């Protein structure tokens, strides 16, 4: 058997001697605005000319819609993997085989980091902070392989800009590079920096649930599920070891965790045990299966019709509460993407206001709070381009809503315990239900 193995190795070697592949993982990164302006480039290996982006522009042209640009493109010598975030394209160039998700996930992580640093991830912000951006990219990737992607660690090495500091820096010529050398990379818990100190020790958790649903014409639910996240804001001194337990963890069908969470404890006891990163982070995200009946908080009564003769149509929408668990539905908003032939709308809303964007054909009705006594209603006529046949399909209605202090799945945090530190932290849990991809077919 040993012989066999050796033979295989020899053969393999024979194959591999043929060519030597020079580069791996991410070679270069280009940031491109949605208009097609390459405003930043970074190379981790030999420089690749930005003309490689032309293949991307070609594909972008072809796709028409920015969201439809294929994320992975093949060019004669390179592969282009891009993500679209905040009206920006993050375009990376790779030369060899690499798991595409690896790159995609990394690019999103880069965007997340920018978000963390600058509050938003947009062209202007990146242009304004180009040096910090460059330093970040330098730290995040070494020779195309991710190095430090935890924002806690990065923040220790490269301080995020604040207004005060930038003023001070310009006066004194100071820098935004950390004075001390970072230790995060070296610690056994890479996501937490050492020596954290707060006067007010507090830990807040937001349980945010989104309802994804498709409701059909007749009001029956075609598909519904709940996606939830637990966002944490932990500002605790030292090295706290937290345990968060739920009243009804069995609800959770599928979960994914921040690396700090100990899988084993979850598997064994269904509690979240972790040493938290400092600051804001997403502790876990979860899924409540569609097997459990999902409560749909509102119903939509709609009647959209386009008349065969004459160039007009009618629209009437009423929204009412369904299963709200006794809470008020807030921030209610309706978005409808009208067919192209709808020229203008003439509607009256009993509550809130509506806008109709002529170029995108998006009708947005902002309602606000849902009052069960007086249901919001939007009705009126649509004027259509004449001479064009009536649209085949009625546009579907997208809903947005918020319910404070409620996790629609019924998930409840039962307690938070802290070990490892002496002080008593402030603790708090907030619940919020939102509409995710909530669509009513008409």
């Amino acid at each position, binding site marked *: 058997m040993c012989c*066999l193995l050796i033979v*295989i*190795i020899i053969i393999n070697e024979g194959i591999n001697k043929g060519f030597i592949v020079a*580069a*791996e993982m991410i070679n270069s990164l280009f940031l491109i605005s949605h*208009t097609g*302006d390459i405003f*930043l480039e970074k190379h981790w290996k*030999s*420089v690749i000319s*930005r003309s490689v982006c*032309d293949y991307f*522009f070609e594909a972008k042209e072809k796709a028409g*819609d920015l969201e*439809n640009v294929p994320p*992975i493109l093949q060019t004669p010598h390179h*592969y282009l993997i891009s993500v679209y975030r905040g009206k920006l394209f993050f375009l990376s160039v790779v030369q*060899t*085989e*690499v*798991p595409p998700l690896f790159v*995609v*996930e990394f690019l*999103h992580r880069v965007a997340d980091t920018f978000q963390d640093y600058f509050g938003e991830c947009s062209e202007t912000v990146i*242009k304004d902070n*180009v*040096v910090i951006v*460059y*330093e970040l990219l330098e730290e995040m990737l*070494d020779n195309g*392989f991710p190095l430090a*992607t935890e924002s806690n660690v990065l923040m220790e090495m490269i301080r995020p800009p604040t207004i005060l500091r930038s003023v001070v820096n310009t006066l004194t*010529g100071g820098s935004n590079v950390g004075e001390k*050398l*970072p230790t995060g990379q*070296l610690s*056994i818990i890479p996501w937490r920096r050492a020596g954290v100190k707060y006067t007010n020790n507090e830990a807040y958790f937001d349980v945010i649930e989104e309802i*994804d649903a*498709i409701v059909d014409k007749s009001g029956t639910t075609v*598909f519904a*599920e709940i*996606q939830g996240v637990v966002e944490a804001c932990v500002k605790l001194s030292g090295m706290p070891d937290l345990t968060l337990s739920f009243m*009804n963890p069995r609800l959770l069908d*599928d979960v*994914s*965790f*921040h*690396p700090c969470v*100990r*899988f*084993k*404890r*979850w*598997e*064994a006891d269904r509690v979240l045990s972790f040493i938290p990163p400092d600051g804001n982070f997403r502790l876990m995200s979860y*899924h409540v299966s569609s097997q459990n009946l999902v409560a749909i908080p509102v119903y939509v009564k709609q009647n959209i019709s386009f008349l065969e003769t004459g160039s007009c149509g009618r629209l009437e929408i009423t929204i009412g509460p369904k299963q709200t668990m006794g809470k008020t539905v807030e921030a209610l908003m309706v978005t409808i*993407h009208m067919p192209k032939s709808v020229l203008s709308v003439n509607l009256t809303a009993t509550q809130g206001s509506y806008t109709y964007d002529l170029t995108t054909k998006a009708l947005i009705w902002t309602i606000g709070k849902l009052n069960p006594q007086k249901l919001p209603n939007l009705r009126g006529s649509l004027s259509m381009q004449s001479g064009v046949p009536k649209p085949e399909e009625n*546009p*579907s209605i997208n809903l947005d809503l918020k319910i404070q202090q409620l996790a629609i799945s019924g998930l409840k945090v039962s307690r938070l315990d802290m070990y490892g530190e002496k002080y008593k932290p402030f603790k708090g849990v907030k619940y919020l239900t939102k509409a995710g*991809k909530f669509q009513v077919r008409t």
Partner: protein
Amino acid sequence: MSASSAFNDDKGGSSSVGEAEYAYDPVSGKIFSSDYNRHDDLKEMLDSNKDSLKLEAMKRIVAMIARGKNASDLFPAVVKNVACKNIEVKKLVYVYLVRYAEEQQDLALLSISTFQRGLKDPNQLIRASALRVLSSIRVTIIVPIMMLAIKEAASDMSPYVRKTAAHAIPKLYSLDPEQKDQLIEVIEKLLADKTTLVAGSVVMAFEEVCPERIDLIHKNYRKLCNLLIDVEEWGQVVIINMLTRYARTQFLNPNINESLLEEGSGGDKTFYGSDEDEDEDDDEKEKEKKAEAAAMAKRKPYVMDPDHRLLLRNTKPLLQSRNAAVVMAVAQLYFHLAPKAEVGVIAKALVRLLRSHSEVQFVVLQNVATMTIKRRGMFEPYLKSFYIRSTDPTQIKVLKLEVLTNLANETNISTILREFQTYIKSMDKDFVAATIQAIGRCATNIGEVRDTCLNGLVQLLSNRDELVVAESVVVIKKLLQMQPEKHSDIIKHMAKLTDNIQVPMARASILWLIGEYCEHVPKIAPDVLRKMAKSFTNEEDIVKLQIINLAAKLYLTNSKQTKLLTQYVLNLAKYDQNYDIRDRARFIRQLIVPTEKSGALSKYAKKLFLALKPAPVLESPFKDRDHFQLGSLSHLLNAKAGGYQELPDWPEAAPDPSVRNVEVPEWTKCSSREKRKEKKVEKPFYSDSEGESGPTESADSESDSATASDSRSGSEESGSGSESESEEDSESEEEEEEKKSKKKELKKPVQESESEQSSEEEDRKPEKKSKQQKSDSESESDEDEESESESSPSESEDSESEAEVKKKKKVAESKPPSKPVKKEKKEMSLLDLDDFEPAPSPQVTPVNTLLSNSLVTDLEGLSLSDSVLSPATIAPSSALKNYELLHRITGEGLTVEYCFSRQPFSPDANMVAVQLQFTNNSSSDTKSLHMEDVKLQSGMRVKEFPEIELLPAGETASAVMGIDFCDSTQAANFQLCTHTKKFFVSIQPPVGELMRTVFLTENEFKKEQGQLMGMNEITEKLTLDARCRNEHAIVQRVTAAANLSRVPCGSDKECRFAGRTVTSSSLVLVTVATREEGAAQLTVNCEKMVIGTMLVKDILLALTQ
């Protein structure tokens, strides 16, 4: 576009966009004035003494680099600052150096000495960063310096520096491939590193430099598996991908013997034993057996290599990672390496990724599409997650459509088609076209719906949108080719369409159809040709070609009517602009029109033109993509990307597994920690499988105590561990440990024999010591101390007394009479036995005659945790099947099992009687057992069982409760309460238990059956299991699967059964008609279609397994 072209001109300092970075520069005017000294001000600033000026200059230079401007002429000025004290200036200088060193090699050498000094710095971070920059400077002259630096750093004390060394390896390799051999040495050294920090980086280096040297992995394989969970996420991806390849070369195909899939979660147990064995002194014996096993692999049932299992087990928790790439890596590992029955676990995680960014969705859907072709069943439960929203980007829509199409089968096709109907109305026309094609594919794949689909598509022909019509025509054409005789009316309908449809492809398709099937539409065809002849000159080329085709075909079949028309068309074609058409016309004329000169060919004209054409196969574009490793770029592009490592085929015979054994001295050195780690990783696995493998475990421990042996299986250990842990959660560590040891001592006498206890005593001391050491040392990663302290004592004890335990095991194991295993049989076969132990729970004891069979079902039940029904309904014997309601471990000593007693529930006839059996395994009494907080679907009702006031330790009690399931298989959830605890439990009935027997005569049966035809009848063909080809066996299996009674029947080829659903009293009639050679037909008639469908599935399973 214009912008990009402007950028190509790197030197163009005056490029319009370039102005931005000079905008805040007061002297910008000067810069543009002359190209020659345009960077003079920057040079001045760099030369100044003030750090702030230098910094400002560097910032502007970096901004230039970022914009893609050329700043290479500043190199001399910048490189001088490499030794600058200011950290930030230094950092920016590094950025500049790395960017331009390649272009200015000579000057770059000036900086080298600074880095060399840095490499000796006492601060590890400075050492690391010096190495990082040094290795990033792509200057060939310094290769020897780099090599030296890497070698030194590889044995640095700091793991961070070692990590940097690992990163530097591929850099040097790409600079000078000649260094490969030396670099491999370094890689080999770093692979042996035991810190998680290094692991990911070194494997990355390995993959880049010497992926073919799989032999380097052997010794590190187990370590990598065990470290995996603590490695940073990017490293995890690389390691998992590498291990996938490794496993393909080292292990046997777990699916090699499809019928013997039973290894699986039930098999894990053995392997803890064997895992530890290998490191024991009977290593030698082990090896022998392994080799033997490998040799016999062909003949013997497949046994998974423990190392293979280790990999699967240790990667599974990573499915919960937040990083999509990690999840995908694990998914592909399972897809390529896991036994079929276990692959299902990845579906849920992949479906979760569909919530992520659209790029992630795009990649995941592509992979799911490939997976659904091979393993459709895996994603079927998640069908609805692939439903399409109008807001999805088109490329996502099309991929989801692909997945939906792949998932379509007889049972779900109606739902899918209904969904498709909504899609057809979408405003996104590309998507509509894709939907129509998808419908076409469903129709070809699933014969039952072909007509429905065809009719639906025909309706689309009257759609207003031309694209929709055209696409439908093309698809209809393909469908009609399958059975044209039946559809002449559709062909006629399409013939009419030629007047309206203008899309060339569609017109061509129609003409082809008419020509091909002109015999079915003898009257219309010539007329169509007439019309076409008229419009010939205005048609597109493909249409013209088809007109000629049509003419030729008609001429051959019906020359009387069409002779002149054909001549006319051919004449028109003769003078066409397109030479293809002229050629075709000339060719056809020669072929069909008989002249004196016409050759031998014209005799065969009919055969040539009217040959039967095979129907097209509509295939998924994702077929056969799975020969690329999933999750790879090559898979996504369906083309081999550069540097792609082929996924090797499984070896015929397993290579020697002993290569992975680590030398004893080294092992003992690290054993305590390593082992503890291992154990820890095991733990979640157990508790994870707790729910699934519940019956096995409890049964196991039961038999343990029964035989008074103590084969201290891992499960028991971890079980008691987690139990006590939850109680003592809040205790501080030391306290806990003390307590624990006390507890252990208390427990032991009950569970353990004398000899073991003593050996355990001895063990504890060194154990404790090592613990202290451990808590001192920093290098240990963030481990859960608690779980460690628990598992470790048992661990060492296990291994110490291993030999003894093993002996006992043998005794105990050889007892079950069903398997002819002798004591003398070697270790390997014992493992087998353990693997396949059928695990009867005490209640089921009526010894399973169909042992291997029950085994299949048991184990299937374990691994397919998702499908709740399967294990239940395929009970092999007619004995009532017991289900577990509360496991001993989760119930903290209280075990509850239930079975459907099939007795009428006297208080309420509409309820199903459920018999509960409570066993108190704990040492204390349980009081006031009752149920609370019943959560039910609407309409369902429950009659609670009477409270059990006292259940003394070790006693068993039973009670009966009634549940009205409303004829649905929805679970009844409730809380089971004792005086101290509450447990959430749920009872879900298999569909076969939702009915009660009813007695019918043969005539009544036939009459009732006659009334339940059409939609209410479901027929399924099947091949009976070899052991189930006599009448008796069929009756036994059907009645085991469902509570039905036999109906007398004259023919011995048929078995009939009847029952009524409990709530609605709808009749359920089942007929099994047998044919030759085990072929059979199953018919279920039931008014409730859902029940009918589910019942068919269950009975099918029962009869075919």
